[in-house]
């Protein structure tokens, strides 16, 4: 490199090459330092993102809450992943990511039946040390159950959910209380041509069938114990054969063996049926513009034999922090915000989701606005829990398979329930959670 080549003789460029290089180095160094400083500041000022996976309906319902949370918190941002609609598909998505080891989510909105499984798999963060003493105390009793397993708190419920019976107030003065009454009223209304079907429910081979069955099992004096036992009992046979008889007698359509919640709702909404078993969300839908029964619907507890208390299967969705979260403190903060009173109030006012906090059930203004609340509270007092066993998915699958055989007429109720009882017994023994515990 020669100075001539650098044009040293030109005016304004009289610096010698060495000095030029030095100045260049200083400039570069300063520039780099400034860039680093600026980048570092930007990095420090960047908000922590808490990622949350929810089923699509809840992502929609909480969109407003999430938006206002993000506005109010400068250093913290919630990013919601809108999961699938079906409950089990959301679990599949979460499990796929958890199995790969490095889950992209900090928080998961969980169905009550997943809790034991996820906790046993080591995927959840125990919340006991994060939430202070008695975090579940503000909740109504029925919503507290199913969150503490083996002495640890794994989940805080955001909305409650329970199985309810919807009935047509324009067709009868009072809803039936017993299974026999339900059949009698249905047959009368069908004979009179008032309705095509008596009772629509969820009979597909899926989790909803277990929920329907648990209510009837309780109604006939049995129980699905928290250990997973109680399926091979006479009460179970009575419940299963009552469900089968609904189809045999033409009170429920044969198609009910493929009904989930939307199909039952569709039929009831069209005015085809006198009774429907569904969750609280259906109330909002039934008052909508597409409903032919708006203003003609009552809600009550499921039927039960005389002397047996009616039961409502506990659903409920709650938030859990994943064990792999890199921001557990922030995740807990988001959990508290989304399960808090303001959030639950908006969810019931705007979307009709049942709250879990006693304060909201006791708020007269809210009750005046949402007359369903006392009924929901009543149902929450007699909720029936599905077994809190890590192997619940398999226990329920055993039950669903046998029940589906009964409903489609493939198997006699007594034989099917005996098989369900034996199948669950084998599973419990193999897992070391048999009756000796």
């Amino acid at each position: 490199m020669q100075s001539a080549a650098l044009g040293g003789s030109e005016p304004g460029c009289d610096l010698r090459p060495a000095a030029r290089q030095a100045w260049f180095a200083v400039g570069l160094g300063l520039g780099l330092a400034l860039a680093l400083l600026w980048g570092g500041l930007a990095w420090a000022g960047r908000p922590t993102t808490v990622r949350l996976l929810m089923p699509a309906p809840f992502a929609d319902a909480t969109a407003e809450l999430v938006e206002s949370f993000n506005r109010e918190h400068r250093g913290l941002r919630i990013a919601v992943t809108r999961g699938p609609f079906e409950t089990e598909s959301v679990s599949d998505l979460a499990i796929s990511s958890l199995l790969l080891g490095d889950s992209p989510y900090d928080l998961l909105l969980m169905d009550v039946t997943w809790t034991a499984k996820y906790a046993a798999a080591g995927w959840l963060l125990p919340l006991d040390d994060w939430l202070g003493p008695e975090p579940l105390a503000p909740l109504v009793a029925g919503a507290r159950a199913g969150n503490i397993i083996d002495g640890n708190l794994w989940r805080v419920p955001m909305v409650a959910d329970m199985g309810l019976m919807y009935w047509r107030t324009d067709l009868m003065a009072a809803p039936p209380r017993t299974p026999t009454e339900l059949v009698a009223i249905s047959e009368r209304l069908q004979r009179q041509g008032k309705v095509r079907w008596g009772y629509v429910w969820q009979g597909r081979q899926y989790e909803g069938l277990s929920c329907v069955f648990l209510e009837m099992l309780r109604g006939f004096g049995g129980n699905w114990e928290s250990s997973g036992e109680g399926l091979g009992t006479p009460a179970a046979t009575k419940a299963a054969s009552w469900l089968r008889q609904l189809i045999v007698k033409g009170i429920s359509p044969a198609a009910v063996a493929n009904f989930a919640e939307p199909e039952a709702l569709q039929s009831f909404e069209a005015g085809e049926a006198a009774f429907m078993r569904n969750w609280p969300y259906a109330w909002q839908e039934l008052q909508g513009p597409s409903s032919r029964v708006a203003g003609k619907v009552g809600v009550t507890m499921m039927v039960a034999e005389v002397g047996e208390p009616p039961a409502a299967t506990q659903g409920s969705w709650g938030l859990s922090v994943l064990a792999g979260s890199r921001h557990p403190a922030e995740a807990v903060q988001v959990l508290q915000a989304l399960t808090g009173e303001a959030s639950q109030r908006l969810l019931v006012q705007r979307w009709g989701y049942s709250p879990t906090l006693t304060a909201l059930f006791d708020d007269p203004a809210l009750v005046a606005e949402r007359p369903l609340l006392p009924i929901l509270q009543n149902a929450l007092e007699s909720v029936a829990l599905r077994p809190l066993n890590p192997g619940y998915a398999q226990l329920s699958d055993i039950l669903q398979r046998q029940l589906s055989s009964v409903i489609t007429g493939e198997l006699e109720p007594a034989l099917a329930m005996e098989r369900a009882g034996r199948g669950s017994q084998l599973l419990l023994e193999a897992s070391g959670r048999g009756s000796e515990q």
Partner: protein
Amino acid sequence: MSLLLMAPALLLLLAVFLWPMLDYAWLSLQAQTVFTGLKPVPVGLANWERLLGDGRFWQDAAQTLRFAVVSVGLELLLGLAIALLLHQSWRGRGLVRSLSLLPWALPTTVMALGWRWILNDPNGPINGVMQSLGLPSLPFLASTQLAWLAVVLADTWKTTPFVALLLLAGLQMIPTDLYEAFALEGGRPWQGLRRITLPLLRPYVLIALIFRLAQALGVFDLVAVLTGGGPASSTETLALYAYLNAMRFLDFGYSATVMLGMFVLLLASALLLVLAQQRWRGARP
């Protein structure tokens, strides 16, 4: 030298095929379940013992086999008929050829959701027609016999075009002078089908058969979406059962065992097929 040239392909095969198989074989000797906190605990042959005594595995195996044989059989017959038709020259053939591929081009999930709606009781279009004719609506997906038929029907609808396409390619490879010579010797057209077309089409039939059987024996997405395996597990296939064990029950050891059991059955069917093909070849000089 030849070994060296083959090495990349061999390595790839080992990596994507043998390694997972060995991993599964190892997993099938472990209890890795939600009850062990997802940690593997050696249990010897316990999973295999359970498999042999698991009525559900064998029922699913029978259901999977029945589905594969019936649907692939239907697809071959229909595919051959369609291929013969599309091989003739007539006006608008090009358009029909493209259109007939449509079902094959649809993603299975979309197609299965479509069928779920078409077969809906009582609101699907088929039951709409039934009711307008004064007939009772049919609970297609709520009856064990009809649900099985529905799965076969949907699969046949979707994959017949694939078979037809393969066979059409085969038909176009047959030189036309063979037929001309046959006609000169006084052969009739329908004899030509039996004497020339079918024997020369044999390799293509075999390829279609192997492709389709392997797919049908491992069927998952169609069943998962259309019926979810129900009612009464009557449409549950082995792939669905393995998936339930892994993703829903978190029982990975047993799921691997079911997958390997399924692999053995698949291998046995492929072997049978090859043997049958060799006898077929031997029977005709």
